[in-house]
């Protein structure tokens, strides 16, 4: 009888990509993938450590697996596993701790275990890119890893410690990965990595890589996902003219205060960020710009915070992912003076969240009367189809008998103003 395996992924899209690939390998080796709430022989938890909240969530999931596993095993990997490796190795609820550098060895470790061998992740070769393109994933879109690690060393960030130095996947491997998933039938690929804008492989930079990607034939689109605002040229922005490149980027602002950006050691100014946002909107009206904001960074005064609020209002982001600053051990920000109390961070976070809801609704409303090319992801109970347009805004198409994983050109006629404002579209004639 085939063994059952369950996965839980916390955190970023890079983790999602890596879990998809590992799950696909298990599936090829005849393991049966089951839900994480079911009984399984192996529980794989791909953890996150970006904030203290992520640590807590990761710990909670590890405990859930421990309660369910009985004779099975728990394998913990990802950023939290890397950050607290020794501590987790002493945790008797966990059978194997696999750091990021050796994440691709999870399959071999499990196989060895059931063959009666006890192996250690460090016996396997370090490989950041040995992830096979996944055929059956937990998603309708395919994540493509192009890069790992980060050399920016922002003062708040633990990621350079747990993901290591920046490293780029060879161009041909990336392109082959895309060709493969397009062949599998995926209609949207999402570029992932820790700091994808710093992609550089033997002279091909990020812009050059995207240029090559959009030349790949096939009916699919490319989404850039999360990227740092490290200075892009107009020629990069011009690439969005190509129908394959979705007019959406998640560019991390973190703060609208020049002073806080300097303290964070971010490599741009708020002013340049704003110019870039305006440029994109001028070139592509309605361009979907979403962002991350950290509230309550050490020394953030009310005045600094208001600069972020004003910036967010004036740019009108499609969504703001708000993080309360959280101390990460060993970072420069840990040693900065004037840490804020939790209640104040919560208050500021709430203000940004409310503002984000407002700007998101306004941004989405501006699509009424426009068209969207919707990739249908699910069919709702009433038979209507739901998916995402090229701007990464959810759209319900009011028509029955449509197919999932297929593009439809729709006219946007209205918006549902609920918690997740959703556009309503009609198929174009």
């Amino acid at each position, binding site marked *: 009888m085939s063994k059952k395996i369950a996965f839980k992924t916390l955190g970023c899209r890079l983790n999602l990509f890596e879990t998809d690939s590992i799950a696909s390998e298990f599936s090829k080796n005849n393991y049966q993938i089951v839900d994480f709430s079911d009984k399984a022989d192996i529980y794989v938890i791909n953890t996150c450590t970006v904030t203290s909240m992520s640590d807590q969530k990761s710990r909670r999931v590890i405990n859930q697996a421990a309660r369910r596993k009985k004779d099975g095993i728990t394998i913990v990997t990802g950023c939290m596993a890397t950050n607290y490796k020794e501590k987790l190795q002493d945790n008797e609820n966990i059978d194997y701790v696999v750091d990021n550098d050796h994440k691709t060895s999870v399959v071999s470790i499990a196989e060895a275990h059931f063959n009666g061998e006890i192996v250690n992740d460090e016996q396997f070769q370090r490989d950041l890119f040995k992830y096979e393109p996944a055929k059956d994933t937990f998603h309708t879109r395919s994540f493509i890893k192009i890069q790992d690690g980060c*050399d920016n060393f922002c003062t708040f960030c633990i990621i350079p410690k747990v993901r290591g130095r920046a490293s780029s996947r060879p161009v041909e491997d990336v392109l082959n990965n895309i060709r493969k998933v397009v062949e599998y039938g995926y209609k949207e690929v999402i570029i992932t990595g820790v700091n994808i804008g710093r992609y550089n492989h033997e002279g091909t930079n990020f812009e050059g890589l995207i240029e090559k990607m959009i030349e790949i034939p096939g009916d699919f689109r490319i989404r850039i996902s999360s990227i740092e605002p490290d200075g892009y040229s107009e020629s990069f922005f011009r690439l969005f003219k190509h129908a394959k490149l979705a007019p959406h980027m998640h560019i991390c602002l973190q703060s609208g205060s020049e*002073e806080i950006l300097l303290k964070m*050691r971010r490599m741009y100014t708020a002013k340049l960020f704003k*110019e870039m946002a305006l440029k994109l909107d001028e070139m592509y009206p309605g361009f979907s710009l979403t962002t991350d904001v950290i509230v309550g960074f050490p020394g953030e005064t009310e005045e600094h915070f208001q600069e972020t609020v004003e910036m967010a209002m004036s740019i009108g982001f499609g969504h703001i992912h708000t993080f309360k600053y959280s101390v990460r051990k060993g970072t*420069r920000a840990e040693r900065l003076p004037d840490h804020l109390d939790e209640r104040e961070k919560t208050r500021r976070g709430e203000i940004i969240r409310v503002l984000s809801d407002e700007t998101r609704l306004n941004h989405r409303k501006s699509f009424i009367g426009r068209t969207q090319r919707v990739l249908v992801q699910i069919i709702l109970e009433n038979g209507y189809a739901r998916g995402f347009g090229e701007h990464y805004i959810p759209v319900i198409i009011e028509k029955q008998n449509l197919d999932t994983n297929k593009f439809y050109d729709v006219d946007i006629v209205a918006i549902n103003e609920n918690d997740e404002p959703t556009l309503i579209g009609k198929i174009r004639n």
Partner: protein
Amino acid sequence: MQTTGLHKLIELINLTESTYILRIEKKDMQFEAGQHILLGKADDNDQREYSIYSGTNDEYLEVLIKEVVDGSVSIHLKNLNPGDLLKVEGPLGFFGLSKDKIESGKFLFIASGTGIAPFHSMVKSNPNLNYKILHGIRTCNEDYGKEDYNSDRYIRCTSRENGCDFEGRVTDYIRQNDFDNDTICYFCGNFKMIKEAMDLLENKGIPGSQLHAEVYF
């Protein structure tokens, strides 16, 4: 190519009571002027960033360090002896001169204290560079590496002593002088100085895209 490894200390050179240079084995580390390394004692988990002070063609690596009394790493590094091992990782960072500007660009380097380190490396690595340095220091003896700069390109701005080049902070110097709008400005050191100096130069008409900062603290 980045490396992580143990490098021997060749020499510790005291410049003032609190500031010193560590000259370290270079091994095969190649870097660009302006980049930094992560440095710590071999037997210590704590590492800190230090800009590379030496030139790209020097046979050794040098860093210029100010001992911070209530800090944890800078104070310990000062007690090392030649032959001791240091954990070195790098080179890291993006605080470099853009290659297409090195020949023709007009550079203004603005530093506070040991923030002069990356500029020392840039000047040493590019002998024909068209630059001017404004060095914010408290007293004249903090003019680390003065002999390596052309005297009319290096301006000491002293806040607590008169008698060297300019009496006052770098920001006072900027207020009182004009700069061509095509000047490419690099700032390094204390964030308060950097913020003020950036604002002043932007108000004087230098575009934001020509301002580059490396914040130490």
